[in-house]
């Protein structure tokens, strides 16, 4: 019991995956869904989950084939050293850019909404240091914080979700089964961005102690996270209409600011924002940890903590490099497509090639 070893149980992984998927996905979900899906945009959320299931399944299968190896470690075994490391490097760059994008989005949101006079660099500094501190604790620390916050966050999230139905109009989400060209498939691909934090699972899967529960844990957590996202997209479109959602920079926040608990709080939205902040901070901590750990494995460094201290200032600079919100939104347009291409297709190709060339352990590792 007292021996120092890193291991996380299924419960911890569940909480981290939930926080990551929810925190990251809920940011722009109603906007993306309404923009690309119209009044049926909520379908994109459900179908994106089904699109993410193969990714989770492959992560688990690869975890069985290459026990105790993260994706950075088994890519060279499949593709050869040079190509494998290059692919690993590109994946890590995507993870880092995703984390930087997420950091900048939450910075802009809080800067605009809560702290209008505080300079962006100060808000970014605070967020990066908070997230960095959590990431510095390693996978055990991040998952424990996620597990501790999970029950409270879940209650607040579902409360916010339920209360934000005020003003809902069923006609705005009808007709439910409208097929309008390729809107739904394209919307699904766009909504897949919610599952970008699954990249964290690629890295931390080797630490899972009860691997036989791997798929149930990851899929269950992702499903639980998608439920409030789906409900929020559904209610956003039902309240504001698909064109109405597009007006808002952060429709989630606007929706929850409407939620009123009479005589208790003017707007519940701010408590939701704090809950959401905790989730997105955990999601970002997971992504920063992933990139630090990944880079340390890539270059053969022993300790991810030093690399994290190098990556954080780099991320800080990258976050501040984006001039403003409009550029950030433009970047997101490309990031969603590139991210889908990498997070969805690469594991699939990796698994297929590993089957063909028969690498990795064939039996279930003990």
């Amino acid at each position: 019991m007292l021996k120092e070893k890193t291991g996380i149980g299924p419960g911890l992984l569940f909480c981290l995956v939930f926080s990551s998927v929810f925190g990251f996905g809920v940011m722009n979900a109603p906007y993306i869904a309404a923009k690309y899906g119209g009044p049926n945009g909520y379908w994109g959320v459900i179908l994106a989950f089904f699109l993410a299931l193969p990714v989770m399944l492959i992560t688990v299968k690869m975890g069985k084939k290459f026990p105790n190896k993260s994706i950075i470690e088994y890519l060279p075994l499949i593709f050869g050293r040079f190509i494998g490391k290059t692919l690993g490097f590109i994946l890590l760059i995507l993870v880092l850019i995703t984390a930087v994008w997420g950091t900048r989005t939450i910075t802009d949101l809080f800067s605009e909404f809560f702290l209008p006079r505080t300079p962006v660099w100060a808000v970014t500094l605070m967020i990066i240091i908070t997230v960095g501190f959590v990431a510095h604790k390693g996978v055990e620390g991040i998952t424990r914080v996620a597990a501790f916050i999970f029950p409270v966050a879940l209650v607040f999230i579902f409360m916010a979700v339920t209360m934000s139905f005020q003003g809902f109009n069923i006609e705005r989400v009808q007709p439910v089964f409208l097929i309008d060209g390729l809107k739904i498939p394209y919307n699904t691909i766009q909504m897949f961005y919610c599952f970008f934090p699954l990249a964290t699972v690629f890295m931390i899967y080797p630490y899972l102690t009860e691997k036989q529960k791997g798929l149930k844990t990851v899929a269950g957590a992702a499903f639980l996270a998608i439920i409030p996202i789906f409900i929020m997209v559904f209610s956003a479109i039902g309240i504001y209409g698909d064109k109405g959602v597009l007006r808002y920079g952060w429709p989630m926040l606007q929706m929850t600011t409407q939620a009123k608990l009479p005589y208790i709080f003017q707007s519940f939205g701010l408590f939701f924002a704090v809950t959401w902040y905790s989730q997105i901070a955990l999601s970002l901590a997971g992504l920063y940890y992933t990139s630090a750990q990944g880079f340390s494995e890539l270059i053969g460094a022993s300790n991810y903590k030093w690399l994290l201290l190098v990556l954080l200032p780099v991320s800080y600079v990258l976050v501040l490099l984006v001039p403003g919100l409009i550029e950030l939104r433009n970047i997101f347009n490309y990031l969603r497509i590139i991210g889908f291409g990498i997070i969805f297709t690469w594991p699939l190709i990796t698994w297929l090639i590993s089957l063909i060339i028969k690498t990795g352990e064939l039996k279930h590792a003990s």
Partner: protein
Amino acid sequence: MHLKKWLIAILVLSMILPGCWDIEELSSRSMPNVLFLDKGNSEKVKFGAVFFVPGSLLPPVVGTTQQFEKRNFVISVEGKDLTDGWNNLRAVTTSSVFFGQLRAIVISDEFARMNIDNFLDFVGRFPRMPLNIPVLVTKSDPEKLMDIKNKLNIIPGNYISLQLESPYAKPQAIPGSLWEVFAAVDNKTFDPFMPLIEEYKENYRIAGMAVFSGSRMVGTISVEETETAALIKEIPNSLLTVKLADNQGLASFRDISSSTKVTPKLDNNGILTLRIQMNVKGGVSELIPRKQTITLQDKQRLESEAAASIKKRIGKLMSNLQSQGSDPLGFGEKFKSVYPQVWKTVNWHQTYQSAKIDIDTRFTIDQTGMFR
């Protein structure tokens, strides 16, 4: 160990060093209670706000007269546009204007008849503007209206907010929150609507509803028509007075609730028929002349007459709205949900104005009060 020390030092410093740009004492924020807009005399826009007198909103203390002093005051400025007006307002107030605790927005009907898109754009971009506040229209001067000291000595924003929150006021003042106005203007599936407010014996009174077509106000409907609109929108707690046929007197009903089904139907020629089926129920509140007992025959007669009265009212309301080209009741949404592809090709306002209305109403008496 060194690493930990560095981390802790950075952590502590990061909490303190960046400073407190956003700290501002509550008492030194100017918190408008109501924002009002009007067409300016010399400039384009008149921008004003109601503030409460600092220190006046404390609970009353026996023996003092503070609770009887007027608690609100108004500042209004003019500007070329809304931002200019806001800027001029900031120049007049002693501290920063903070809209986070705004309770209502009042616009004059002159202002509303101009395009309200600019106003919506300006107001909506404020980060902490509450979105669930009511927007009201007044035919009188909003500055004078907001400057009165009402009998209850409640500051205007609180008064309006209390009034509109009451479930019994909702049928007369169908709440048109700011976010609903945004949704209407963006989706174009229905038109915005706003309660009409006026002064009445040094208090505020709801005087009907201002209706819009797109982002311009096109007219008003009376209180009775607003109540009918509330029935279509299934807002409960209405009252209804029916003049009985053959001069048989009056029957009044209370706690009226309705369930409405609107079915749009396009025929082959592209003519739209809107079928409105409404089931209303309510309790008897007054019968003139008084009846000892309401028999089954009485009930049936009262119900059929009430249903007919409601049908007539709906007809009158619809013809008024159609003539003004305003769809505040959301028929466009129903049409879009049934004919999503046709929606893209038609001009809804034109289709709506030429639509036929087919009304079917039923009334059920469910309660008779404390008497039979």
